[in-house]
């Protein structure tokens, strides 16, 4: 934001006799248009980077992590949660339910190849529930 502000000041009109005039109206105009175009992070709900870093470090082999790595992980996790949620929803719909149950997640996992790593996370009975 300070960049836009200094831009406003530098472009301020100059009254005859030297002192540049700070154009307040112009400044607010610019701020409003910035606010309109602002793709806020409010709807992205970034996951906390410090927490992600801590989770990464539970692996003893992981030593040094660059600054950008947790940021990429945050995005990856967002996509992961979104995708798993979506897939689980399909099963809730099939069963005409409006509430996502654990069994929906379990089913979604069992149907997603790259989610094999989760097979120990999900209690066995959740998956069996679906099969029976």
């Amino acid at each position: 934001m300070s960049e836009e502000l200094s831009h406003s000041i530098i472009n301020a009109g100059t009254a005859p006799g030297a002192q540049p005039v700070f154009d307040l109206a112009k400044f607010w105009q610019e701020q409003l248009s910035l606010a309109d175009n602002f793709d806020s992070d409010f709807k992205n709900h970034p996951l906390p980077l410090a927490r992600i870093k801590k989770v990464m470090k539970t692996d003893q082999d992981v030593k040094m992590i660059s600054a950008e790595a947790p940021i990429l992980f945050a995005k990856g996790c967002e996509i992961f949660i979104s995708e798993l949620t979506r897939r689980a929803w399909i099963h809730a719909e099939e069963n005409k339910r409006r509430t996502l149950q654990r069994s929906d997640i379990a089913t979604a996992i069992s149907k997603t190849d790259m989610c094999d790593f989760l097979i120990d996370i999900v209690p066995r009975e959740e998956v069996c529930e679906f099969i029976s």
Partner: protein
Amino acid sequence: MSDNERTGPAADDELSLPKATVQKLISEMMPGDIVCAKDTRDLLIDCCVEFIHLIASEANEICEKETKKTIAGEHVISALQTLGFEDYVEEVDEVYKEHKKQQKDRDKRSTRLENSGISEEELLRQQELLFEKSRLKFEAQNQ
């Protein structure tokens, strides 16, 4: 990045992600009338934590193979690719590119100020204008 040790999870095995944040992510994916049970959300969080372990471990291996000491963005992206999450790569790479761009702008801005050639008096004057603007805004709010 500030870690508030007192309110965060203490032990490694209690480590998870904030429930409210994950809840919002879930709600955004669903139409309004769909609800996610709390224990379902907790299961999703556990899955996500496991996802981090998986990718981090792979990224670490990729990093070591390149005899580097720090896990970089490239390693994370390679890990996603290797483990079957190729679909994620495009979006994650965008975030990476945006981050790199912001870093560059940040570096440029700090040297730009030093090299701007603006005299100290002029900088002080500009600062005063900024303060005045803040004051006006504050007074306007209080009316």
